[in-house]
């Protein structure tokens, strides 16, 4: 392949990387800027981080985000594990239909999903008076996290040697026992990685949170966005960098879990 590749392709690949990472790097570096400007470096400083962390709104949003994302991750991971194991033996058409149904949030534009959820919760409130408060956001996040959590779990299932399961059945293990003592432990790396994906997707969500969250339910991305209506300072860089660090730490965690899983199953 190498021989036929024009030299410029390497240049394109390099430029793609620069294009993908330069804005992030600029954002992060100016979060340490001593001055107020986005284009003049005035010395290294943690001042904007101190300011961000002292900002009460930011802290409240961080707490909301942690509550919503943690709850949605736990729920979505359990549901996704159940769905993958449950659908494993379903017929082809059933499986396809259920997967498409659960995968709806991957296909429908996020803003449409968000206004649909807004309409749903508001009619629920009007008709029955039920309002789960922050629970509304948790349920909404869970729904779009499930298909993401399913991806690595499904991949892990493909790596499970079916003869192990047959062995368990041959030894008179019930279906439930096989699942609990054989299948789920084998799927654990996938489940862990699925949980990490679910957390990332929920943590980064903006559209759903912005449209569905009521007063006092602001999450971090929505809070950061609201800052755009004021004169901008690098405080917004500091807040954004904190978000990036959390996401990237989770990616590394998820990869470490997957890598370890591969080692132990080998």
């Amino acid at each position, binding site marked *: 392949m190498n021989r036929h590749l024009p030299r*410029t*392709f390497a240049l394109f690949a390099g430029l793609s990387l620069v294009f993908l990472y330069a*804005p992030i790097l600029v954002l992060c570096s100016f979060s340490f800027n001593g001055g107020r400007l986005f284009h003049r470096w005035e010395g290294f400083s943690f001042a904007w981080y101190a300011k961000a962390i002292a900002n009460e709104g930011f802290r409240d949003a961080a707490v909301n985000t942690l509550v919503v994302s943690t709850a949605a991750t736990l729920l979505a991971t359990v549901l996704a594990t159940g769905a993958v194991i449950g659908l494993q033996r379903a017929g082809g058409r059933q499986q396809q239909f259920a997967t498409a149904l659960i995968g709806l949030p991957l*296909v429908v534009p996020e803003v449409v999903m968000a206004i*649909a959820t807004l309409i749903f919760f508001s009619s629920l409130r009007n008709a029955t008076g039920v309002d789960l408060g922050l629970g509304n956001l948790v349920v909404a996040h869970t*729904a779009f996290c*499930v298909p993401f959590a399913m991806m690595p779990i499904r991949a892990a299932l493909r790596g499970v040697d079916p003869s192990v399961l047959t062995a368990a059945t041959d030894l008179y293990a019930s279906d439930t026992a096989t699942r609990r003592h054989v299948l789920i432990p084998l799927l654990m790396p996938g489940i862990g990685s699925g949980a990490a994906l679910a957390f990332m997707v929920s943590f980064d969500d903006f559209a759903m949170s912005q449209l569905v969250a009521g007063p006092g339910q602001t999450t971090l991305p929505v809070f950061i966005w609201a800052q755009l209506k004021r004169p901008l300072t690098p405080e917004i860089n500091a807040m954004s960098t904190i978000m990036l660090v959390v996401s*990237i730490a989770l990616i590394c965690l998820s990869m470490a879990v997957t890598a370890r899983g591969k080692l132990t199953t080998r």
Partner: protein
Amino acid sequence: MAAIVNHRTSTAGSGLSLAAPAIVLAVVLGCIPLAFVVVYSLLTPASFGGVEWVASANAYRSLLFRKDLFSEELVFSPDHLMIFGRSVLLALATTVLCFAVGFPTAAYMASRSPRARKWWVLAITIPFWTSLLVRTLALMLIIGDQGLINGLLIRSGLINAPVAMLYTDFAVLLGLLYSFLPFMVLPLLSSLEKLDPRLLEAGADLYASRWRIALQIVLPNIRPGIAAGCLLVFVPALGSYVVPLILGGGRSMMAGDLIALQFGTSRNWPLGSAESVVLVLFVALAFALSNLVRRRAA
């Protein structure tokens, strides 16, 4: 996978109950809310958001017409058409640009050793898992009037006033390319990895030029990857919300931020629902087209 299916015992189907909670959630928070959108699009707006339960096709009518202030007659108004048209054009342009940048990138990645390729894939994937809002913000801080580029240009004396880049179609297009480039690179790469290098050798041995090899050997063989990549870029670009919201700033609107507007300041839920229905129809059309291409390739 096939082997796992063989594991099916006499209790086949009993596992389905394990999938039930996820399916129920998908119905309650997916299908039912979407059905509500369709219903709401056929109702009358209440004055402070929400709806009156009076059936009306006004929402769909106002996609194309508006009431004249004095004569109360319906006059043609292209505002919606223009925003939907811009969304389609921007999404198409994004797809083309993503391919133009993504194909050489993917081809270069495919030519690396498997080890190096793994790192490249990781590098292309990481941005996808970080907040789109934050990344869009990063672009805004670079191309804004007080941003890095304008700041540097003014200080270097090349220009006196900032060049308006933010809140233009250019800004939105840049943001879309930035958001969705990985969605093009990865499916192209997975197709290119499967391409038999001997085909390229054969082409070269028969004195085919590089362009001919690209057009007559590579492209037809990676058609599934191209179809998947285009779909993965076009669909989210068409329904994009964060990018036009932040980089378009109400001046370069797309369908996504138009819809959100009806549920925010405009308080016209039926109109926003009707716009959503139209947007989803466009998405469905894109899926149908890509299916057609894939079936013809097979």
